[in-house]
């Protein structure tokens, strides 16, 4: 096969003069080819551009240099590290970290070749929202959120965002308009260039795809199209976009037999998630100001993950008050575990639940590396469950009879109804 670079070929870092030796061809896209390479015993990935792409995208080099100078918004980006060049050639590319093999593509998720639990899947959605928040907060625009630019670890929900060579200052003129099915309607119609707000629309599409394995605008209108070509896509995603669960208009409702995933998953999630997706794809569809921002997704996805509990069969279900009564997997009645009510949010106290700094102090940032409390069993009586204080500070608890006790670090409080816990800055109540 003919590729732009070949195995054992050496290319050089523009900044460091580092010699990178090409090991293997990994894949090709519309802009160029990606290779595995090594330098000083360390493996990296190299993207090398097609000559015709370099000609067409005149700002590419400057955009990459800016990205390299600014540095990665967070650790979830396979961010360009330096430009690479070949002596006596106009071609160039860039070096980025190599994606580990445990990361799977969103296509694997869609084709059911990667099967994360709900918990891992929601964690991936949460990390995506967090990383795009970091990118947008830097004044940057991603421009091309789609299936092929995000990878995730099905076991942990860790994510990696690649193809960061289209990232530019929000509002700059660029070569990429986005990917069909992900582009905001105003971009499909050609009314506006990509910006942060159109990124937010694409992010909502990607989150809907990940959680529902379906596109939010593909319902009856899609079913009625025989040949799904460019004009069909322009209509569905550009000129007549209509949410499949629009509460005011069911003319694009999902069709049983064709859009089953949408029907199955929509019913499974709590109302608060349905409400936000409804806003994203009704008021947010044509009005850029109506788009759901990453910080709202972040809070919502944390609440969604906190609402998970296990059926006796092992399947993860969502708690939604009295609305969800039977397990989706075994159809048996669900029995919810004790819950912790913290302000307006509920945290299910499963055998493996951990509380983090933001749970016990709402002024704290999201930090999932430092658990502050864990569900535990009484050492002498395994039928008694408790919440163990693994923070550095004592909690104050108020029992049903209004008596007050201290729960020092490493001690546990019984999971009994009516107990309220004062963590210091935040209070919570145990409900059963």
């Amino acid at each position, binding site marked *: *096969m*003919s590729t732009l670079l070949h195995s054992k070929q050496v290319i050089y870092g523009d900044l460091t003069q580092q010699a990178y030796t090409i090991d293997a061809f990994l894949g090709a*896209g*519309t*802009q160029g080819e990606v290779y595995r390479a090594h330098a000083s015993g360390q493996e990296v990935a190299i993207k090398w551009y*097609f*000559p*015709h*792409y370099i000609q*067409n*995208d005149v700002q590419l080099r400057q955009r990459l240099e800016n990205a390299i100078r600014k540095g990665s918004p967070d650790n979830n980006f396979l961010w360009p590290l330096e430009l690479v060049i070949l002596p006596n050639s106009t071609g160039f590319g860039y070096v980025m970290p190599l994606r580990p093999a445990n990361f799977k*593509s969103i*296509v694997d998720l*869609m*084709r*059911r070749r990667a*099967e*994360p*639990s*709900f918990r891992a*899947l929601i964690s991936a959605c949460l990390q995506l929202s967090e990383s795009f928040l970091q990118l947008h907060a830097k004044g940057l625009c991603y421009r*091309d959120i*789609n*299936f*092929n630019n995000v990878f995730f670890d099905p076991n942990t929900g860790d994510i990696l965002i690649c193809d960061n060579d*289209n990232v530019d200052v929000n509002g700059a003129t660029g*070569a*990429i*308009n*986005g*990917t*069909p*099915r992900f*582009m905001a309607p105003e971009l499909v119609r050609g009314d506006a260039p990509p910006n942060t707000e159109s990124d937010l629309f694409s992010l909502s599409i990607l989150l809907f*795809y990940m959680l529902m*394995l*379906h596109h939010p605008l*593909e319902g009856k209108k899609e*079913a009625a*199209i*025989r*040949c*799904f*070509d*460019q004009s069909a*896509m322009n209509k569905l995603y550009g000129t007549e976009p209509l949410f499949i669960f629009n509460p005011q208009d069911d003319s694009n409702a999902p069709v049983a037999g*064709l*859009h*089953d*995933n949408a029907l*199955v*998953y929509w019913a*499974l999630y709590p109302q608060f998630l349905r409400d936000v997706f409804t806003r994203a794809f009704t008021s947010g569809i044509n009005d850029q100001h109506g788009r759901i921002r990453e910080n709202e997704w972040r809070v919502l996805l944390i609440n969604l993950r906190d609402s998970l509990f296990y059926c006796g*069969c*092992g*399947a*993860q279900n969502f708690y939604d008050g009295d609305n969800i009564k039977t397990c*989706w*997997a075994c159809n048996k009645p669900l029995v919810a575990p004790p819950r912790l009510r913290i302000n307006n949010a509920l945290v299910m106290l499963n055998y493996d639940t951990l509380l983090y700094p933001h749970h016990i102090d709402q002024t704290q940032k999201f930090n999932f590396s430092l658990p502050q409390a864990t569900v535990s069993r009484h050492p002498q009586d395994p039928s008694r469950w408790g919440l163990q204080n693994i923070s550095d500070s004592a909690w104050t608890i108020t029992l049903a009879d209004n008596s007050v006790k201290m729960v020092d670090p490493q001690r546990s409080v019984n999971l009994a109804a009516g107990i309220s816990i004062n963590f210091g800055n935040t209070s919570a109540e145990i409900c059963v």
Partner: protein
Amino acid sequence: MTDIIKRPGGAMANRPLHFFWLADCSGSMYGEKIEQLNYAIRNAIKPMQDVAADNPNAQVMVRAIKFSTGAQWHIAQATPVEDFKWDNLTANGVTDMGLALQLAAEQLDVTQMPERCLPPVLVLVSDGQPTDDFNDGLNTLMNKPWGRKSVRIGIGIGQDADLEVLQKFIGNPEIRPLQANNAEDLVKYIRWASTVVLQAASAPASQVKDQVSGGVVPIPQAPPASDIDADDVW
């Protein structure tokens, strides 16, 4: 806990995409040319399967027509791309290209096609001029709704290929026929048609400024011809 189903539902819904090779097997293809075409198509199978596997929107089905004196199905059954294999073609006879289009048109009739599909892709490879009524074949094809909606790519092999005829087949002034003057270009173009075009017809990639937009689907630019290597010229 390890054997439980983690999440309900099935794979993401998708649509069939019917892909047709139309290969010239006339006498002028005899020898190196037909062997190079066989090699180029075999070489493109794995990349084609990889692109299809990475595309959740399409279920790719492949068929092939050979034409020389008359036209026949080389792969008559619409074959899932995962199972697509290429038996080598041999060359002999005249260039009944019009009949090949008639044969494709029969299968693109609404009675033969599933109700909901992605645009079909037809890739016509030829080294010469039609010897039968090409226009009649093209009219039959274009009279079928699925024929009109198809994405058509033309690849000419060598200097004698009739690029005008291929351009008429393509029917979109923004997509030019590709002229392969050596084996390397042929490999490149066949691979492009079976990967980039396949992808564009089902899940268009990132929309870049340089791409053709007037057709059924946006088709990214074809790779440039390589510098002609004297040893490798037909």
